[in-house]
């Protein structure tokens, strides 16, 4: 990258169900906390990029009433629909373009205002799939899970182990929503069936959440903090729609990761990256994500979880924060991963801190069966 860009501050809300406060109040508190964490004032921010969904927010042009809370009053402001990693990419581009130096990136979804799965049904093709009426985001992911598990002989237990790991990690993270420190594989496999083979504890709870971070150009970052978290690489890729896609692999994530690795000069992600924060909207997705990120061969993601390599004390910890399975404030989920990765580098993750993290990967996704994927590689000063 021609210009180096760093994360210099961040904040998250406590992820919960049905937080009894307005969207503006929650966003205000988190943006204010992120500015405080960076130690700067709103006046020093040049541009604001937010991520939310009009349908999840329940209003069109959902940023018009948000501008004051997010600190965008009389500033350059944009909104991206979908995941917060998209907003981060946009913010990064604003700085790389040389026109802005400090950017606030914010993402939120208060999923309890409506059943988000009801909205995702309308992501389906209106001409064919919606006419049948049987498919929705969970059913589509069940199709993906079954195809993947059948093709590579992945046992249900391996998928359940992802939930066990992440929900136990979540118990160490004060901000997250679903914490189950003593969960067992049997309990996951006996939880309520949604669409076979997907069960209640293999999908995230419905969560309200807001997060925000402050980005700065190298020059500004050095002024603001002595612990900048550099964006070393980024990649993003969009896949085919559901029906034309090879559902047993996340090809768009492979491509996004390859781009990010190349930019960051990473040849062997297994050895060169210390911690991974990924957006696994379903337990089986974490196995598929680990393969797409090049941590395991095709279909062998199960080995990582079975051998405990992705646990807190494993060689390649995945989701020490609890991941998306523990809290999924939809548009904020990817940006939360970025913040959690940055926390690991700055050694601010407290109970779920991994020792000696110098480089971390964060992943965000959007769309049915993880259609679109974005990868960020973050690094500290070494």
């Amino acid at each position, binding site marked *: 990258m021609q210009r180096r860009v760093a994360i210099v501050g961040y904040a998250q809300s406590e992820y919960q169900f049905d937080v009894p406060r307005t969207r503006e*109040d929650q966003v205000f508190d988190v943006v204010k906390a992120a500015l405080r964490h960076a130690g700067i004032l709103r006046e020093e921010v040049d541009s604001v990029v937010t991520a939310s969904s009009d349908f999840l927010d329940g209003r069109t042009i959902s940023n018009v009433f948000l501008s*004051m809370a997010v600190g965008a009053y009389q500033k350059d402001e944009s909104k991206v629909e979908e995941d917060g990693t998209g907003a981060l990419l946009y913010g990064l581009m604003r700085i790389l373009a040389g026109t802005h130096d400090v950017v606030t990136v914010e993402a939120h979804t208060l999923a*309890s205002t*409506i059943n988000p799965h009801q*909205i995702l049904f309308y992501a389906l093709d209106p001409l064919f799939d919606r006419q049948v009426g049987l498919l929705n985001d969970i059913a589509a992911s069940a199709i993906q899970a079954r195809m993947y598990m059948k093709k590579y002989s992945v046992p249900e237990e391996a998928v359940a182990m992802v939930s066990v790991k992440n929900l136990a990690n979540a118990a160490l993270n004060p901000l997250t929503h679903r914490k189950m420190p003593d969960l067992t594989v049997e309990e996951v496999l006996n939880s309520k069936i949604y669409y076979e083979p997907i069960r209640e504890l293999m999908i995230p709870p419905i969560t309200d959440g807001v997060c925000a971070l402050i980005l700065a150009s190298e020059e500004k970052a050095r002024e603001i903090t002595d612990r900048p978290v550099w964006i070393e690489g980024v990649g993003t890729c969009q896949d085919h729609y559901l029906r034309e896609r090879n559902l047993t692999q996340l090809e768009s994530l492979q491509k996004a990761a390859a781009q990010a690795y190349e930019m960051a000069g990473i040849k062997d992600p297994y050895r060169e990256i210390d911690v991974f924060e990924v957006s696994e909207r379903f337990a089986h997705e974490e196995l598929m994500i680990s393969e797409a990120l090049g941590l395991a061969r095709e279909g062998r993601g199960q080995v990582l979880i079975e051998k405990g390599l992705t646990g807190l004390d494993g060689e390649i910890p995945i989701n020490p924060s609890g991941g998306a399975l523990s809290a999924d404030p939809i548009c904020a989920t990817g940006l939360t991963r970025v913040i959690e990765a940055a926390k690991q580098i700055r050694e601010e993750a407290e109970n779920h801190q991994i020792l000696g993290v110098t480089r971390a990967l964060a992943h965000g996704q959007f769309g049915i069966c993880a259609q679109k994927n974005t990868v960020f590689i973050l690094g500290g000063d070494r």
Partner: protein
Amino acid sequence: MAYLKDQRRETMMVEGSWNIGAYRYKGSTQLQEYVDGLKEKKLIGSLCPGCGKVIVQPRNICGRCHRRMDKRMVVSHKGTITCFVISPPIEKGKYKIIGIDPVEAGIIQEGAILVPVFVRFDGADSNINTILLNSSPEQVHIGMRVKAVFVENPEGKLSDLEGVEPLKE
């Protein structure tokens, strides 16, 4: 020569709906505080501790200062028209306000001309969007002094403030 229109063929279409049901928007205290004020015929605004601006109706966050506006203020019933619009004659079956035809419901007479106004009440730094009563399109002007008109027995509803009328000072 045939018209292009005649040669047009209908594209096949399928029925669709966009039924995402009801939202449960998170509530706030500002609206409640405002209507509680109306019940006592008071106009409540919020005060920014940063810039000292008073916003009526109240808002929680000052975008300018990026601060919370937790303090509440009562502003005057008297104010000034900062802007106005003159409606065309209201016809039956032409307008609906929250699903009600005001002419049909007898709220507004057929052919009446309404004057929606922006009023800045004394002590406030923002405009309130309301309606000019007991006046005429000929009389209204920017800078016109007005006072708030409340219903006789306010019940703590937004409709307690009926509008404003000319003030004789």
